[in-house]
């Protein structure tokens, strides 16, 4: 499947308003909703069971007040990011495992329709987001603010985009527990 075909399938299945999803990053300070490239963060290597250090495209989750450089205080030097998986990289890896498009079509449609809890689809945007990307919600990473000192964001989501992503994270992380805990009402 080509990137174009995948993009058409995702767009057709998604209810996101792609035209409203991104906005200008000009003048915005480091914080939630910004997208950067080449940020060093750890990713667990399944084969060797060690953490790798990679430079990745990331979506910033930490609120800007927590890492405000003008507000000197303790505990404002680390922030949480979610690595981005650009669609073209996913398609390339997928084609190495599956020859047909059947599984891929089902998978992409399910992600775009928000039926896969752990993944969020981001519509096409600037730079590496040209064909869209995925956020793997359980693959969050922590990195130091110094990683952002000399770089500028490649994109920012809009207020609409931020509200959409926030709701996705809220749905994912704040789901009611399946197991019954002590003192449950």
């Amino acid at each position, binding site marked *: 499947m080509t990137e174009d075909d995948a993009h058409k399938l995702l767009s057709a299945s998604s209810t996101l308003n792609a035209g409203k999803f991104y906005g200008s990053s000009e003048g915005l300070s480091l914080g939630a909703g910004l997208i950067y490239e*080449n940020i*060093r963060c750890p*990713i667990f*290597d*399944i084969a*060797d*069971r*060690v*953490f*790798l*250090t*990679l*430079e*990745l*495209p990331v979506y910033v989750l930490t*609120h800007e*007040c*927590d890492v*405000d450089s*003008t*507000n*000197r*205080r303790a505990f404002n030097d680390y922030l949480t990011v979610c*690595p*981005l*998986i*650009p669609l073209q*990289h*996913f398609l*390339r*890896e*997928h084609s*190495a*495992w599956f020859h047909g498009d059947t599984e891929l079509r*089902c*998978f992409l449609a*399910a992600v775009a329709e*928000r*039926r*896969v*809890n*752990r*993944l969020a689809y981001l519509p096409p945007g600037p730079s*590496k987001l040209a064909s869209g990307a*995925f956020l*793997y919600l359980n*693959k969050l990473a922590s990195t130091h603010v110094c990683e952002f000192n000399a770089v500028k964001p490649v994109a920012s989501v809009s207020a609409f985009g931020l509200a959409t992503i926030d*709701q996705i994270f*809220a*749905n994912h992380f*704040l*789901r*009611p527990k399946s197991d019954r805990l002590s003192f449950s009402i």
Partner: protein
Amino acid sequence: MNTLDTSFMHHLSVEPFEVVNTRLHVPICTSEPIFKNSTTTPETRPSAEIISRDITPIEDLILHRATLSAGKLIFKGRLVRE
């Protein structure tokens, strides 16, 4: 009965201990917390999503490999101790 000898106490001096008032530093975050009190039930409870499609182990592996291929490997540590 043993009594506490407090005669040495007049030699002691207490150093002033100052706690930095972080409120003096500006700007202060003005965002409202989502949940005003952690002991109460959230006012807006996120909807429990109906999961009709899970990620298969192969898809999980593909997502992992795609994450790695989207970046540049800088360092791979070695196991120091089992």
